[in-house]
């Protein structure tokens, strides 16, 4: 009889010491319809397969502004008047409820489509929701960032943390039971660093933290995105314009829609027509959106810090100033250029930084490996065909997160966030 117990004990020991495996969603049963990662990234999920979300008119929400840097109102040039205060959106439930902070992805504002979608999802499930702009978006850089040179993840997380504390201070009447945190894309990386910071500052004691399609190696992800504008696009030679090819197909859609947002479900119709874009064209389009973000970052950081690389230091920008020359200069500066000309010099001067490899190590998920490995409250959802990942990144996530990592077979970059299977899993994780 005793032997049975020994045997059971040995078995238990065996199982508990075996590595915990990530949850790999079976491609056969997953049912996500878009198999092309670029199409998934651009078009996201077809309408019929999205979760049921509350209507805007059923959400008690408002946009607010907080002054985090009062001195900036006097220092900033005229063209920055709309963003001297940090904007955010708060959706509140009637009574006491848990609150979710949502951190937007690269260059995205709190009001862009993915944070809006996540807000509706969590609001519908009974959470208060606060949407925050990405530290790489121009409004956050101007109004909330201390150094306005995004890219050092610990500092970006610190800026976010201060912003979150200010948001809470602005709504003392809001009854919050617990705090939750999520972010997608670059916002996912930021969420990890914010969570780490919260372990020492203890302002929120996040109950659960969800990272959606985060970059693992920030520099590798940026290189991937930079490379996308270097694809060989059919029909574009040295005398034809890439935009003439693609923008014409898209502007019709934008105008009819009435507003412009590059990651909305716009390609679904195109892709079934004979005008369908091929992989290179779609890659170019994704890369273009990233290059525009890079240009905004390079320009804003340079101007706020008076570095004189894009805007000459003696130029006083007024509302009527022709910005096109600066836009041109910023557009030729990709993220690599921003890193070498602005980020690395700042990082070296301020933090006694060293080589590029050291910076990459410090700002990527690698530097949090032990913390992430030992924090059961943090989970990751990622896609096997995500375009911001590189070789070995999934392996790192598997060994770091174990069974707190879910790998979906399809979806590209964030294309399946609004797929019903994914949204159910997201809500389920927060429910605990």
């Amino acid at each position, binding site marked *: 009889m005793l032997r049975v117990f020994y045997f059971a004990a040995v078995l238990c020991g065996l199982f508990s010491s075996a590595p915990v495996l990530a949850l790999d969603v079976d491609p056969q049963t997953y049912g996500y319809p878009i198999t092309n990662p670029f199409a998934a990234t651009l078009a996201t999920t077809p309408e019929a397969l999205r979760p049921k979300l509350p209507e805007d008119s059923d959400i008690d929400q408002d946009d607010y502004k907080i002054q985090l840097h009062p001195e900036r109102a006097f220092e900033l040039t005229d063209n920055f008047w709309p*963003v001297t205060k940090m904007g955010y959106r708060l959706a509140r439930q009637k009574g006491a409820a848990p609150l979710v902070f949502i951190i937007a992805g690269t260059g995205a504002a709190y009001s862009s489509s993915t944070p809006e979608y996540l807000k509706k999802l969590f609001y519908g499930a009974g959470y208060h929701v606060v949407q925050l702009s990405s530290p790489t978006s121009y409004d956050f850089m101007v109004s909330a960032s201390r150094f306005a040179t995004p890219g050092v993840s610990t500092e970006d997380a610190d800026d976010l943390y201060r912003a979150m504390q200010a948001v809470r201070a602005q709504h003392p009447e809001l009854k919050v039971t617990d705090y939750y945190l999520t972010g997608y894309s670059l916002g996912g990386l930021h969420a990890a660093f914010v969570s780490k910071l919260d372990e020492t500052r203890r302002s929120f004691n996040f109950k659960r933290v969800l990272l959606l399609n985060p970059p693992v190696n920030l520099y590798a992800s940026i290189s991937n995105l930079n490379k996308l504008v270097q694809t*060989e696009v059919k029909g574009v030679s040295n005398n034809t314009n890439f935009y003439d090819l693609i923008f014409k197909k898209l502007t019709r859609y*934008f105008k009819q829609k009435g507003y*412009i947002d590059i990651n909305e479900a716009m390609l679904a119709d195109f892709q079934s027509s004979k005008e369908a874009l091929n*992989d290179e064209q779609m890659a170019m389009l994704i890369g273009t959106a990233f290059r525009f973000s890079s240009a905004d970052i390079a320009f804003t950081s340079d101007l706020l810090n008076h570095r004189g690389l894009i805007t000459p230091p003696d130029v006083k920008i007024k509302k*009527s100033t022709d910005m096109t020359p600066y836009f041109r200069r910023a557009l030729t500066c990709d993220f690599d250029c921003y890193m070498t000309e602005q980020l690395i010099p700042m990082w070296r001067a301020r933090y006694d930084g060293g080589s590029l490899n050291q910076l990459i190590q410090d700002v990527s998920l690698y530097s949090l490996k032990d913390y992430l490995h030992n924090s059961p409250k943090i989970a990751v959802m990622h896609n096997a065909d995500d375009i911001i990942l590189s070789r*070995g990144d*999934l*392996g790192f996530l598997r060994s770091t997160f174990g069974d707190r990592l879910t790998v979906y077979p399809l979806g590209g970059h964030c294309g399946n966030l609004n797929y019903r299977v994914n949204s159910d899993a997201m809500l389920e994780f927060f429910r605990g």
Partner: protein
Amino acid sequence: MVKNLLLPSLLLATSLAHAQPDSEKPAVDDDGFKNPLQELKFRPGLDQRVFERSTLEALEVYDPFEPINREIYHFNYRFDEWVLLPTVRGYRWITPDFVEDRVTNFFNNIRDFSGLMNSLLQLKVKRSMDTTARILLNTTIGVLGAWDPATKMGIPQQREDFGQTLGYWGVPAGPYLMLPFFGPSSLRDGTGLLVDFETEGSVDFLEFASISMDTLPMTALWAIDLRKTTDFRYGQLNSPFEYEKIRYVVTEARKLQIAE
């Protein structure tokens, strides 16, 4: 005996099912990564300036009144944020959704009159007939346009404005204009806007005297409804170069609308 046969055949079937999809797909890494970039064709290293060249070309829009346009852009931005949008919010708060929808439909019906005129002027037969049918249906069954039975019957609204008509007959866009209150336009399209307002203002169907577009409350309601139904927000692109981006997109979109 049957059991003995079943097991091997099941095993065979499952192994086949596993083997099949793998043969077509590109290589997958050990950790499950599909490396989506490996299939892309890239340009050779010294010829990678397509993005820069294309974008810098796209920035060339004829905009001789740029300084004043930019001032108006900032004025519109503020007016929108401080006056127009709060008014729309107040209107939506006071007015029941049911009434709001009736108002929107009513003005859409009036817009169909200028749409019809412009479709005719562009010799678009099908569109003119559709729009005529819409006006007839919506003005009668739809009670002066308050309801939109035509859309339900499969005739959705297709807008045509006088700027498009001018473009159709070969009038160039002219300099880019940022109109006060109305936003991005061009000399041609701004002129077209005035003509369309004149057309819509003179609509006096069924001699229904109490509905006149020229009274102040009516104009105010029209403006609020127009803002409510327009999704555009200043600052939406969240970029220090929003002016340039809007300018390019609006210019291109007009070209397309005219070509369509």
